[in-house]
């Protein structure tokens, strides 16, 4: 891409706004409101989880012990690092540092992908242990090992069901986040980076941080129930 290109990034002032300040205000506010809807979406799932956790405390503790606490912990670190690179990418976009922006977006994507790879290896592990409560798949939970009778061992299905639902919805958000990052990357490669067009990076950064934040809550909720 030559530096003589005169193409403008598509995020300069659009017709319905009076000035760029108004547009930035609207864009930021729109994203924050969207994040509020995401919080409520996950809120419904978290509520369901907490209700069942209090109803079936023993089964949930037993099932929680079979999760890979270390893998989840590493993933937490990976996501926190990706939030750091994302925040730096926003800074690079604001100061129109194109090379840094491209590098940091790439780093964020690599970390996001690493998270998904670790997550899916955890899923695969659960598959081998027969801990997936899906119709048509053999489910087996060794109750005796965890001091549960047969009826309580059956209740662990609820835990695994919610574990897959919650981390699955989170992983879907990671995919969406990675798609957004790749669009930003293409934009950064194709258009010149100016101090005017950083808004897409900034509001995508907000979204990325929220996915990170959701995981920060998911990790102790799902993995660390029995730690005091």
């Amino acid at each position, binding site marked *: 891409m030559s530096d003589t290109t005169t193409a403008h990034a598509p995020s300069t002032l659009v*017709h*319905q*706004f*009076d000035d760029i300040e*108004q547009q930035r*205000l*609207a864009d930021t*506010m*729109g994203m924050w*409101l*969207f994040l*509020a*809807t*995401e919080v*409520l*979406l*996950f*809120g*419904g*799932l978290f*509520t*369901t989880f907490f*209700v*069942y956790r209090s*109803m*079936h405390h023993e*089964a949930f503790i037993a099932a929680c012990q079979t999760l890979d606490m270390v893998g989840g912990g590493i993933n937490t670190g990976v996501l926190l690092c990706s939030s750091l690179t994302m925040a730096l990418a926003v800074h690079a976009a604001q100061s129109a540092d194109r090379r840094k922006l491209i590098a940091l977006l790439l780093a964020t994507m690599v970390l996001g992908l690493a998270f998904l790879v670790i997550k899916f290896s955890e899923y695969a592990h659960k598959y081998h242990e027969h801990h997936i*409560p*899906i*119709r*048509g798949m053999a489910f087996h939970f060794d109750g005796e090992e965890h001091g549960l009778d047969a009826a309580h061992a*059956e*209740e662990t*299905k*609820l835990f695994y*069901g*919610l574990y*897959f*639902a919650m981390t699955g*919805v989170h992983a879907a958000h990671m995919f969406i986040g990675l798609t957004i990052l790749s669009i930003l990357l293409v934009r950064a490669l194709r258009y010149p980076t100016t101090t005017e067009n950083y808004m897409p990076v900034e509001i995508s950064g907000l979204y990325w941080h929220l996915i990170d934040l959701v995981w920060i809550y998911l990790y102790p909720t799902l993995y660390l129930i029995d730690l005091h």
Partner: protein
Amino acid sequence: MSIVEELPAVPSPAPVEVPEPNYLNAGYTLRSWLLTTDHKRIGILYLISITFFFFVGGAAATLFRLELMTPGADLVESETYNKLFTMHGVLMIFFFLIPSIPAVLGNFLIPMMIGARDLAFPKLNLISWYLLVIGGLFTTWVMLVGGVDTGWTFYTPYSSTYSNTYVMVTAIGIFITGFSSILTGLNFIVTIHTMRAPGMTWFRLPLFVWSSYATSLINVLGTPVLAAALLLIALERGLGIGIFDPALGGDPILFQHLFWFYSHPAVYIMVLPAMGVESELVAHFTRNRVFGYKFVAMASLAIALLGFLVWGHHMFVSGQSYFAGVVFSALSYMIAIPSAIKVFNWTTTMYGGTIRWDTPLLYAMGFIGLFTLGGLTGLFLAAPSLDIHMHDTYFVVAHFHYIMVGGTVMAYLGGIHFWWPKMFGRMYPESWARFSAILIFVGFNLTFFPQFILGYTGMPRRYHIYAEEFQVLNVMSSAGASILGVGYLFPMCYLFWSLKYGKPAGPNPWNATGLEWQTPSPPPTENFPITPIVDEAPYAYHHKELTH
């Protein structure tokens, strides 16, 4: 309100045969409509699509009202009957009532009322319409070829385990449409916050904008929880992950909590915009300021807030704790306060006004009476002791139809008539319109008033085989429904007729205040030739009378 003319008067052009450029003649191709980002065109697209869903949902109602003429099962079998009332409920609620006033009138009017060129996110607005249409057509198709028999409430474990109908795909259709609702709400909130014209302070906003704002808050905060609930149902049904399955220790009542956490506020998504329209109609047709403007505006926010705290009144007989029932009952009673503030303020607004009995006011008067009746019967149902008697009877059916049809549809039609000249630049035929407004009022009451008595004397809802002593009232109800149906067909016909043959309206046929009347009809693509500057409160009829 006034527009400060910054430019010298343009010398009037020679013959005015070439029409002014406006949003309708900006393009005639299908592409210019399907790819438009103009909020006014998107409003018209919504108008067409929800009218379609209204008539499909109405067709289902026609069939089961016919079936209910006799106590036996003569026309349809039980399974078909269950599918029909589910189809009626799902289509009317998710694809007609929820988008009705916000998506049609809100889209068309909010930017104009606040003096903006468009909504904050025009492309998102178009995407919202596509999501509604995709979700709606998908759901309609599923219901026509297969059907769902769970009722619009999808209660578990029937919906997740036992029903042999197309629950999962219907849930997906509603899930998709939920995003339309969320994104429209988000768009309105951001627009109202950031794009008001100079001088348009919060307390100069028309009350329709205030109620749309309150509605949008519910859209944004409530809909995601429904999405979560539907997602869990779909996982349970599709993959057998037993989340609400009592056999695994799951709790079916938890689903009811999640469902009503959205679906009770959704009732206010349906009625709050109608209250906004009502405020406009009452002010404009009695040529008076709205009495207690700030109270009416704040009542909208109070309803939106309290609406999130009353969902438990749907579960008085579901095994919810008695204490929770008492708390939810008290909170439900509190909703009556802001609602009553509005009703009293509308009636007081009329006092000393110059009342014009045009069609929009007829609908507005219908709204006040029917909404009050619907609201007061809601208090019966909010009392746990009475609700044990009336739960799941026709009393409930009559109650919410008085709010949803007597309230929302009346206000919607009143609003459509009031702003029709603005939308298309033509007047509707007044006598036909008055005639059908009265016909709809009569038909509505004949349909639903007998249902109060039916329910009170013990006829349960959702049954099509009933005791013989209920037949007379059921026949009355079905007769009323036929009148109501004809009443709805009239506006369809004469409004369509008026597009070509109606009297040209001019920019302000009602001589009304409000920025939307200060621009040509139909308005140009960006609404105002120059950005208006607002220097007074809304409904300033006391000033207007002096200048005319």
